[in-house]
């Protein structure tokens, strides 16, 4: 029928004929930004990406995404200093996402369910790793996943480095360390215990290794001379804590003085408390300047540890110490006052830090050892000696489990490239997803989930783990507190708020696209994107 109905002269056309996109001077573009948590993680985790899976309760997928970067989530979930949480944008809204607690939950799930890691086909290359602390283990894991055959030589009788011989068991139960190491071993990593490397050249030659990663940590205690002290009653933190792993821990006196203001001093004092002693911490500066975490200082105090701030030990007698009262000068330095006090003590433990024991490397060609014993490495984690890489506490920088683990990953990538005769090129990083780019209105207020804490009486007398884990319910809620800073999480806001129907929804997992034929460039989508994943850019035709 080509007869028009009454009073209609033309077929109505669709407004689609009108390309309103040509009104535009600015256009929206989807961007991905680097979330602050990811940026802050020393182990280089893509936290937001694994939280994304955890938000759906897909814990195994979350764990698998996590271990692409860090093979020891149950350990990190307990002892990592969580710089991610300090950086978390949610901290500016209410409280940071408890990233570490969710990481621990995932790590514990993996141990519970026995999740394993697949490896790549063998490349025929052999890598020697010296030291089975977090750095060595992390490198071993990544290299094995790339198909290289890894052998670790470890001086101690058990694996773990400072995760076993330093960090007390009430913060890091040893079965957790064993479970995560066992999973790495099950991938085919050979670990030779009680095997101290003394002659590196010879070890490399006899083993036929194509590359080496050094991760011997920092185990040499820094000491000071205290007049009058009797060597039997004075020991250092590293020695004291590592003896906790032997069947014969030290027999301490009743009054134990711990000298130092760092986290190690706190660990020592809290360990002594659990052994039945009455520990006091003596430190030359004040509580504000002490490098120990304030939270740990408070927990130690709760457990009964006493503190003598601004006191320097000048003399040690049979059962007492002479200390000089210090005061802070204008520059914030402690200075002596000439006033003295005595503190009763029958044992003194020095917690003044550790240095790397790198004497065995002095004769290796090209290696540069700094005065403090650390080894210099380039941005590829390679020492001055080709094929010889190093990381963890033995290289300059922050000393922590996550930093050591991150070094292990970074070294593994460069070792892999070295073995293949190529160069590892780091993918470009996105600009930061800052808080001001978020649209907070769309996020529900939700408090941080709290982890259970062991009763004080048990904390004072046993080495039971002090902090409990989240359960499936709280872990899910906690993961869902993530704001997905800077990366589209498919909330459909842009698709909904466009007055011009110029946003195309591509379906679950595929995000969105702009229909620039009709986009007028008003900028509503960018303004209403909760996570800041849309930029408005100039579009002058």
């Amino acid at each position, binding site marked *: 029928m080509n007869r028009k109905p009454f009073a209609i002269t033309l077929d109505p056309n669709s407004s689609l004929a009108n390309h309103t996109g040509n009104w535009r001077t600015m256009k929206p573009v989807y961007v991905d930004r680097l979330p602050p948590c990811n940026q802050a993680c020393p182990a280089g985790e893509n936290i937001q990406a694994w939280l994304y899976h955890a938000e759906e309760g897909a814990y195994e997928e979350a764990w698998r995404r996590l271990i692409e970067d860090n093979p020891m989530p149950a350990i990190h979930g307990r002892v990592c200093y969580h710089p991610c949480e300090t950086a978390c944008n949610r901290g500016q809204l209410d409280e940071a996402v408890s990233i570490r607690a969710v990481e621990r939950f995932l790590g514990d799930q993996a141990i519970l369910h026995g999740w394993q890691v697949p490896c790549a086909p063998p490349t025929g290359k052999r890598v020697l790793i010296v030291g089975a602390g977090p750095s060595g283990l992390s490198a071993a894991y990544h290299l094995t996943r790339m198909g290289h055959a890894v052998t670790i030589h470890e001086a101690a009788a058990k694996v773990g480095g400072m995760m076993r011989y330093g960090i007390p068991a009430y913060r890091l139960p040893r079965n957790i360390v064993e479970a995560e190491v066992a999973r790495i071993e099950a991938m085919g990593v050979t670990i030779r215990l009680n095997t101290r490397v003394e002659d590196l050249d010879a070890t490399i030659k006899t083993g036929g290794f194509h590359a080496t990663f050094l991760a011997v940590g920092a185990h040499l205690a820094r000491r000071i001379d205290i007049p009058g002290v009797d060597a039997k009653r004075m020991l250092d933190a590293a020695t004291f804590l590592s003896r906790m792993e032997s069947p014969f821990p030290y027999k301490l006196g009743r009054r134990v003085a711990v000298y130092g203001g760092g986290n190690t001093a706190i660990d020592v004092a809290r360990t002594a408390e659990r052994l039945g002693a009455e520990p006091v911490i003596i430190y030359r500066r004040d509580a504000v300047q002490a490098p120990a975490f304030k939270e740990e200082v408070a927990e130690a105090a709760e457990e009964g540890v006493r503190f003598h701030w601004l006191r320097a030990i000048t003399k040690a007698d049979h059962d007492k110490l002479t200390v000089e009262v210090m005061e802070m000068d204008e520059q914030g330095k402690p200075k002596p006052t000439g006033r003295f006090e005595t503190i009763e003590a029958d044992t003194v433990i020095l917690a003044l830090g550790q240095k790397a024991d790198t004497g065995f490397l002095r004769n290796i060609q090209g290696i540069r050892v700094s005065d403090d014993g650390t080894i210099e490495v380039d941005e590829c984690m390679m020492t001055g000696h080709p094929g010889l890489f190093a990381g963890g506490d033995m290289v300059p920088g922050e000393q922590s489990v996550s930093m050591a683990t991150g070094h292990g990953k970074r070294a593994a990538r460069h070792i892999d490239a070295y073995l293949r005769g190529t160069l590892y090129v780091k993918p470009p990083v996105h600009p930061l997803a800052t808080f001001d780019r978020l649209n907070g209105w769309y996020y529900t207020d939700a408090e941080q989930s709290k982890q259970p804490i062991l009763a004080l009486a048990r904390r004072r007398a046993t080495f039971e783990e002090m902090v409990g884990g989240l359960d499936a319910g709280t872990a899910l809620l906690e993961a869902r507190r993530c704001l997905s800073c800077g990366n589209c999480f498919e*909330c459909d806001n842009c698709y*909904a708020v466009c007055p011009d129907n110029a946003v195309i929804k591509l379906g679950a997992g595929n995000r969105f696209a702009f229909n620039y034929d009709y986009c007028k460039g008003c900028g509503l989508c960018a303004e209403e994107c909760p996570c800041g994943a849309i930029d408005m850019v100039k579009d002058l035709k």
Partner: protein
Amino acid sequence: MPEQRIKFYQTGTYTAGNRLLNEEARTVQSRMDRTNSLNSGHRACQGCGEALGARYAVDAAMRAAHDRLIAVNATGCLEVFSSPYPESAWQIPWMHSVFGNAPAVASGVAAALRAKGREDVKVIAQGGDGATVDIGFGCLSGMFERNDDVLYLCYDNEAYMNTGIQRSGATPPFARTNTTQAVGETPGNLPSTGKNLPRIAMAHGIPYVATASVADLHDLEAKVTRAMAVQGARYLHIHVPCPLGWGSDPAHTIKVARMAVESGLFPLFEAQFGTVVDRMPIRHKVSVEQYLELQDRFKHLFGPPRNTDAIAAIQAIADANIATYGLTA
């Protein structure tokens, strides 16, 4: 409002969609099969709140009516920008008569459908604030009085925008329009004038009256959906910022609307048979300044010299709304 507010979800129910929400808790606008009743290519300004409000409301009505819907439109921006002859941006049966008679035409359509026994087809009428509170008011009051089976949607952008920003009965106190210039003793629109149409509609005792805003998509859709389930005359008054007439950034359309809600100036409530039955509490309270500052039509209040009395008077209106509707709890 009665729909579920999920706590602890990444973004609660506030974003349009989100994979963590079950299907029913997502909005119509988040669906790939939404009607796009008002399609691309229309000639509304950048960031037009009215185009957005119409897309939200009519798509939700279409879904509620199982796609059997007829829309009647009053003259105004929505009609003009969507249907310059011979183009139409409407993907639904849509008709326009004149400026003041949309409620009467819609009543006629509803009567015709009833006569034909087509109970499956639903009718909506829509118009701007001028068409609704001023010129079409008589027709609307008649539609209410007869309790005709029509959902009337008023897109309130607080002036006659299509003809160049003239004052309407819905223009707020002190706002500058082209007929209420910011000059003289009381610059802008005279306070204590104008009409509150939702209250007038309620006074008719019709089954359903509600207010909504483009700032809260979930709430808006829920109200359209509930209204569509009711038989008889229904009225929904939707706050839709107009970047051109209000002198606001087109990107801020939703933000401006949100500030109106969060300051208490535009209360969101629902009424049945003349009685308020529910209201949307303010989530993050803001001062009226935070709303006014975003718009050039109130620029004259910020001086110099700053018109503290006028700002205080506007704040008093917001505070009275908060008290009347209980918006803080």
